[in-house]
């Protein structure tokens, strides 16, 4: 069956009538209109012909010997090759029952003889047009069904990808982080069932070990639309903590702004990393113990005295071993800080004490370098890790002294900036997120402590002011040889200060000196 639309002038019509005169009349009439006509006198011939080469329309007489029109029509309708061809009966029978039967057997029209040529032609045209429309409709249907199948296949493809992905995937609302859908990997990682998760927010199932995490993620999404490869810790149903590498994208699902979370469980990798760091610590520090100890003992002189030359050489060995120990400490420190293994142990401490301790610790070095150390302390309570802040201050002082010429001065000072200290309550488990929870928001900007370490050294070029806080970056490549230092000190300082929600930066004038600033938020601690 051709699906091409039939152009009326080229339509193919089969005429069936046992009377040759009628046949000729109809045939002539149709041919004149441009139709292609086949004429047969017998029903059986007509059927064979129609099956072999289906016409576009059939004109069918009723009263015929052997097989009458009704039977022919029934046969036509019973065969899939011919069932859709419109059949118009042409007959002398005028009775209503005859007409009804014609329609019953599947005819589309009934013309009584004698007929008017114009009428026959009009009806034929009409039914050909209808047949065209039918064909169009069928073609469209077929196409639509194909499209639906294609869509379903595509849908299935993506649904399968979502369902079978080894990565935990979750879709949640952007507004609240409320779960819309999660895949089986998510459920198996988190230990929850689908019912327990859908409709809940990530906070409601206590997913994040850091409760601020989701707010941070959603904020990032709203601002930039994406978050890539950041580490977070999540809590499973059974309370296990897992580390994930998370990427999030903002997507629009039927008008609702959503977040697509894709995670990578790196708990095992982190565990191995930590084990590695432990192993490396041990493997490096154990021989250093023997080495340092052996040199110390030689230096003590009780295993025989060395000549002056020998003592000098020993001194070099000791200095460099000490330097190696510091380097190992710094590297491991930084590595552990970056992998989150070192938490700041914050408590109440006083800025004045810290400054005094730092000064005391560096006095000997300053004296040796003939550098004057001037401290202007400021007594204010701080919520910080005193050992780590001290480490930062001594590091900055050490740098300042190293890069100062004899006779110069290094200043260490602290002052309060901005408004009133914010009130804060401690909770029994709370050591980390202290500065984020404010019981009563103040209308003033939060108070900050500004610490400055100022020197009169050679200064730092403007384009290096940021980079010196990176690992192993020193202003001058020769510095590490001449001035000592591991090149990690400022990187460690920055890590420490950032973990206190503070800022550290440097300002400098070449040839005149530099000032390193530390800014720490002050929270007035109220224990509760």
């Amino acid at each position: 069956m051709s699906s091409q639309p039939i152009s009326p002038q080229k339509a193919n019509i089969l005429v069936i009538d046992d009377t040759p005169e009628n046949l000729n009349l109809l045939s002539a009439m149709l041919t004149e209109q441009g139709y292609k006509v086949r004429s047969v006198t017998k029903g059986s011939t007509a059927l064979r012909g129609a099956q072999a080469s289906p016409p576009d329309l059939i004109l069918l007489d009723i009263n015929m010997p052997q097989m009458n029109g009704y039977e022919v029509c029934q046969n036509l309708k019973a065969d899939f090759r011919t069932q859709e061809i419109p059949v118009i009966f042409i007959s002398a029978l005028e009775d209503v029952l005859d007409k009804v039967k014609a329609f019953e057997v599947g005819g589309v029209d009934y013309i009584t003889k004698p007929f008017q040529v114009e009428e026959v032609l009009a009806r034929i045209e009409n039914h050909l047009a209808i047949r065209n429309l039918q064909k169009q409709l069928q073609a469209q249907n077929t196409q639509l069904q194909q499209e639906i199948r294609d869509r379903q296949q595509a849908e299935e493809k993506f649904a399968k990808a979502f369902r079978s992905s080894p990565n935990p995937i979750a879709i949640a609302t952007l507004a609240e982080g409320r779960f819309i859908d999660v895949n089986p990997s998510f459920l198996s990682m988190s230990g929850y069932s689908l019912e327990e998760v859908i409709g809940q927010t990530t906070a409601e199932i206590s997913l994040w070990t850091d409760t601020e995490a989701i707010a941070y993620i959603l904020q990032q999404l709203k601002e930039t639309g994406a978050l890539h490869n950041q580490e977070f810790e999540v809590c499973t149903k059974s309370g296990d903590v897992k580390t994930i590498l998370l990427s999030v994208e903002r997507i629009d699902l039927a008008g609702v702004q959503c977040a697509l979370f894709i995670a990578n469980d790196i708990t095992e990798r982190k565990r191995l990393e930590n084990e590695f760091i432990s192993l490396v610590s041990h493997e490096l520090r154990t021989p250093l113990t023997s080495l340092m100890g052996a040199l110390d003992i030689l230096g003590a002189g009780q295993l025989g005295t060395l000549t002056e030359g020998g003592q000098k050489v020993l001194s070099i060995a000791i200095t460099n071993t000490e330097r190696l120990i510091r380097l190992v400490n710094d590297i491991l420190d930084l590595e552990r800080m970056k992998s989150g293994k070192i938490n700041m142990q914050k408590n109440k401490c006083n800025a004045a004490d810290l400054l005094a301790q730092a000064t005391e610790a560096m006095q000997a070095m300053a004296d040796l370098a003939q550098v004057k150390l001037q401290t202007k302390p400021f007594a204010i309570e701080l919520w910080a890790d005193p050992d780590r802040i001290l480490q930062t201050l001594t590091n900055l002082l050490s740098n300042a002294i190293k890069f100062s010429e004899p006779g110069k001065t290094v200043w260490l000072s602290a002052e309060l900036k901005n408004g009133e200290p914010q009130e804060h309550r401690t909770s029994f488990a709370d050591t980390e997120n202290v500065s984020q929870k404010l019981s009563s928001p103040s209308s003033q900007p939060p108070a900050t402590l500004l610490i400055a370490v100022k020197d009169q050294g050679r200064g730092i070029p403007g384009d290096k002011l940021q980079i010196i806080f990176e690992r192993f970056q020193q202003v001058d490549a020769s510095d590490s040889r001449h001035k000592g230092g591991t090149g990690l000190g400022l990187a460690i300082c920055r890590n420490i200060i950032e973990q206190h929600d503070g800022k550290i930066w440097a300002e400098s004038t070449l040839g005149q000196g530099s000032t390193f600033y530390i800014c720490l938020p002050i929270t007035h601690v109220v224990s509760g």
Partner: protein
Amino acid sequence: MNKSILIVDDEEDVRAIAKLGLEMGAGWNVLTANSGQEGLSIAASYQPDVILLDMMMPNMDGRATLQQLKANPATQGIPVILVTAKVQQSERENFTGLFTGLNVAAVFAKPFRPLKLAKEISEALGWI
């Protein structure tokens, strides 16, 4: 004040250096053990005044040795100082937290300076 001390560490050089440092530096009587197992039997037999215990040893590690020392009435009362390469001096207090209930007297970090060891141990245990 001639104290006796048992050093438990699987590294031969570390034992040798520590022993020299304590003998030369403070005249202490130094016993050594190269494993947790050996440490347990020497401690029980000789009852030193203090045990210096390395944390990272193969087979029986520091933690297991410590548990056994505290479980044995013969060695329960001997103060134990843990030595670890895992942390720096400034983080020793955090490390102790991992051993609540096991009565650790102190935690020392590696590398230590052997000539200063006697003084540091005495300070940690309140002997001076």
